């Protein structure tokens, strides 16, 4: 492992030299300093391994066995409008941003109905024109804690930048499509997304991760979210990468008083998928909702880590993650709720439920409560089981064949997460994905 790591680190350091040349200039910018620091950390960090509690159930060695080429250094991949259209979620009106291998494609994007003052653009461009808007947020929200974060930081260049000034309401959701993969290289795609909602602003974002084709690639994302006082943010993530791909995202959310942040994490495709969602509730009367659905099939590995940090009193957090695992897939859930000393009158609910559909599927779940304040109501629960035999018989006794009966029970199982999705037009499309992914009859 030792020499392997060294070689890998050398590879990325080498890529960094090439990357720096491409950036020409800006060497004194805060962003460049941040990149250099991140690279240094990447060099120092031990690669995540299963001895580390945070990676206990997820072996990421397959990811580090490859020398992925940062997409910006690889041959540019052209996509067609037809492909873009095929990959977008439809039937509802929305703004559209398209990224191909991490780089913004304005030609495919549609951002013409935004309220005045709202800025939705490529991070790279914003860094050029209004760097201060980025500077006071970007490195403050997310700490560099492991090799993945450091790697993203070292090559951080582009991503979705969404800024909603105080009092503005973006009525139509912003759908951000990230297409990945290349015929010529195993590419490393590292979007750096930043979403800022100032006081009383509202915005709804759909992050849509999909493959261009069936190539192997690695998406390593950092998403930072700032929810200002009284703001409302809905953030959907529909992760459906190619079956050969790796996907790692760390999302850090900072919430100010009376803000409401809701995250809907829907995981489908990918060989190894790891999602970290961390939210700091740094003010009173905040609401934080984390909903998740993870579907595993074949040899997939899906790992969801969440951390809700109740730092101040009178906040509410609500977490519900549900998973269905078929084939030889493995699921991991690690959800931590921290209630700090000052956070009296906290209400925190957490629930994780998993259904195993096959003899070879497996789940490791670890819900955690860490409570340092006494006047709180916190609960968590986790269940693992199979589809209900009684209900299965009941449905069949009404003449419904066994495969549809199973689909009904799957649908019933996911329904409570499903119904949380506010964009109702999205539900049917998600429903299709669920059954497609499990290779079962859709109902």
């Amino acid at each position, binding site marked *: 492992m030792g020499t392997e790591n060294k070689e890998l680190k050398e590879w990325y350091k080498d890529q960094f030299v090439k990357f720096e040349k491409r950036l020409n200039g800006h060497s004194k910018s805060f962003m460049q300093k941040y990149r250099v620091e991140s690279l240094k950390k990447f060099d120092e960090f031990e690669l995540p391994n299963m001895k580390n509690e945070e990676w206990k159930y997820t072996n990421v060695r397959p990811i580090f066995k490859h020398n992925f080429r940062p997409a910006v250094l690889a041959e540019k991949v052209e996509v067609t409008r037809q492909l873009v259209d095929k990959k977008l979620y439809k039937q509802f009106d929305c703004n559209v941003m398209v990224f191909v291998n991490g780089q913004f494609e304005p030609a495919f994007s549609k951002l013409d109905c935004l309220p005045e003052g709202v800025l939705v653009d490529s991070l790279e461009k914003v860094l050029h024109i209004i760097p201060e808007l980025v500077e006071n947020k970007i490195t403050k929200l997310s700490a560099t804690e492991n090799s993945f974060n450091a790697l993203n930081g070292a090559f951080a260049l582009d991503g979705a930048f969404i800024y909603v000034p105080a009092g503005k309401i973006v009525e139509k959701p912003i759908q951000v499509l990230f297409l990945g993969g290349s015929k010529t290289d195993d590419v490393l795609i590292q979007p750096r997304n930043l979403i800022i909602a100032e006081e009383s602003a509202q915005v709804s974002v759909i992050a849509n991760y999909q493959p261009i084709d069936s190539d192997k690639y690695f998406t390593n994302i950092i998403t930072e979210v700032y929810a200002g006082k009284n703001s409302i943010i809905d953030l959907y993530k529909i992760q459906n990468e190619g079956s050969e791909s790796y996907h790692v995202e760390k999302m850090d959310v900072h919430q100010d008083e009376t803000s409401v942040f809701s995250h809907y994490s829907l995981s489908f495709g990918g060989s190894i998928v790891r999602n970290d969602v961390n939210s700091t509730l740094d003010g009173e009367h905040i609401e934080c909702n984390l909903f998740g659905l993870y579907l595993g099939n074949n040899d997939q590995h899906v790992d969801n880590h969440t951390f809700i940090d109740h730092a101040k009193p009178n906040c509410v957090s609500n977490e519900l993650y549900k998973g269905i695992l078929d084939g030889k897939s493995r699921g991991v859930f690690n959800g931590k709720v921290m209630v700090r000393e000052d956070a009296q009158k906290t209400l925190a609910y957490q629930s994780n439920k998993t259904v195993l559909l096959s003899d070879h599927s497996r789940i490791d779940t670890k819900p955690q409560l860490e409570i340092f304040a006494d006047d709180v109501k916190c609960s968590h629960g986790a269940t693992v089981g199979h589809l209900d035999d009684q209900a299965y018989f*009941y449905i069949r*006794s009404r*003449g*419904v064949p*066994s495969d549809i009966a199973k689909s009904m029970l799957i*649908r019933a199982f*996911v329904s409570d997460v499903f119904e949380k999705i506010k964009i109702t037009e999205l539900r049917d499309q998600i429903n299709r994905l669920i059954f497609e992914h499990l290779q079962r009859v859709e109902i």
Partner: protein
Amino acid sequence: MIQIKNLHATVDGKKILNGINLEVNKGEVHAIMGPNGSGKSTLANVLAGHEGYEVTDGEVIFNGKDLLEMSPEDRAREGMFLAFQYPIEIPGISNSVFLKTAIDEIRKYKGEEEISAKDFLALIKEKAKILEMDNSLVSRSVNSGFSGGEKKRNEILQMLMLNPALALLDETDSGLDIDALKIVSKGVNVFRSENNGVIMVTHYQRLLDYIVPDFVHVLYKGQIIKSGDKNLALELEEKGYDWLKNGELETA
């Protein structure tokens, strides 16, 4: 329509049915009575094909076919309907999706067209009315959050919607207040016709005041020990089961 011959069944290795013989023809309503643990519910579940019950001997011919060979769903498609004693809650699946799927599957099996949404809604409205059920129930999840009475009514609604050849009512009267019992009975009486049969499993005579059976059978220790007409039920009501347990056995 159905012939049950020398039916034996076990649950978890325990013998429950010890040679049941029963024949039900179209247009007949049979009541099966008996004390707790006599095997009434087991009989209903075995006929519907519940996997927890193992048939160790005997045969059941339904519409000329070997019933015991069929999967639960095929039994349903052949026209067998079980109204569960404890209807299952399926949160997240609406009654309408559930029932339409069931109707379409049964129709497909018979080589018929699927029911149109319009016809389906009209049908459910009509049937729900008989049972004095609220229209909102169509969009509610199957039995989820229903009271005991509502669940039983929902079972009868499903029966009316699926229109089976043979309905097995497993203690459908238990836990019902008198008003609900009247409504449920009305549903069954609307259903009964020259083209179908009903087997009612019950513990009490009360139900039989509202749904008058053609035959009454007493089940005890997994066998039918006495058969008669509706007067047998009255006799049981008066004397209890003990006189039968101790007295001479008359087989059906």
